[in-house]
């Protein structure tokens, strides 16, 4: 059981993350993203399997050749790996609530993940591209998105208590 003391102070981490976001605005003219890399990967797969479909699909066409988000994601994976490794936290494991088995946990993760994939596609971004990036730029749609996320998250968590408690 990992105690939260093993992690750094969340306010300082948030402050550092805010500085990263601010630098991204200033240096790259855009913000952070995560789901966009998945959209890019999906569009790459479709383009490889059926080029005609990807080119004529208005959603995938927009992500063809999107390399910035892919490199940012590669960096995120490297940064996460290095940080976990250096802090002695890298370990093959499955984080799950005390009342669920590994198989249920993994199934819930795939199911929840696929809902997030659909949601991020509709909303044009996720907690990174909308909540953080658009939130700090005061985009009305981003604040609408994040309000809906937490509303549905709280409601769903009460119904899915067995997963986590």
């Amino acid at each position: 059981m990992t105690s939260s003391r093993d992690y750094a102070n969340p306010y300082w981490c948030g402050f550092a993350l805010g500085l990263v976001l601010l630098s991204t605005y200033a240096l790259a003219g855009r913000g952070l993203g995560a789901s966009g890399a998945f959209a890019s990967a999906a569009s790459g797969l479709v383009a490889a399997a059926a080029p005609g479909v990807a080119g004529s699909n208005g959603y995938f066409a927009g992500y063809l050749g999107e390399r910035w988000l892919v490199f940012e994601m590669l960096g995120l994976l490297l940064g996460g790996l290095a940080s976990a490794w250096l802090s002695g936290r890298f370990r093959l494991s499955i984080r799950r609530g005390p009342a669920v088995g590994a198989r249920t946990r993994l199934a819930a993760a795939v199911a929840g993940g696929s809902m997030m994939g659909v949601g991020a596609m509709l909303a044009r971004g996720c907690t990174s591209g909308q909540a953080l990036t658009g939130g700090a730029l005061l985009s009305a749609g981003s604040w609408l998105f994040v309000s809906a996320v937490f509303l549905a998250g709280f409601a769903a968590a009460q119904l899915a208590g067995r997963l986590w408690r």
Partner: protein
Amino acid sequence: MSESLLLALLIGVAFGAALEQAGLGDARKLAGQFYLTDFTVLKVMLSAIVTAMLGAFWLGRLGLVDFSQVHVPETFLWPQLAGGLVFGLGFALAGLCPGTACIAAASGRLDGLAAALGIFLGMLAAGLAFPALEDFYGSGARGVLTLPDATALPTGVVVLLVVLAALGAFHLIARREQKR
């Protein structure tokens, strides 16, 4: 690798390290937010938003950095509302969001890998269904709509309100944590 892609890589490294150090690769911590037993998600998100917002506001206002070219996400009311609800449901089930799922996976956690696989599949399915979703995807379009535009309040006032709301939330969190 071009200069801009190298920058993207470096930004990603810093982004990933900040999330991992905060413990946001741990699904139980993220899920704890929805049961009000762990407030790491809110603390990190609000601190980050306030920091970047204040930085962009003041550096821009003092003329030190030009943020006018930064792409502000456009508002599409209905798909962002519906997308947020579906996303929130998935977030509670997975205990991770797309960025944090990748951090979990990079820390060796198989639940992070499973969530990432799900995100990819959901994105693929929704993308393939785009021709059917296209009308809804573009509905409620408001272009670049900021909170100051929507509320007719000056930007400085909205910035102040967001800061006060975040400080209020931090205060409530601290009080709750003291009681436990």
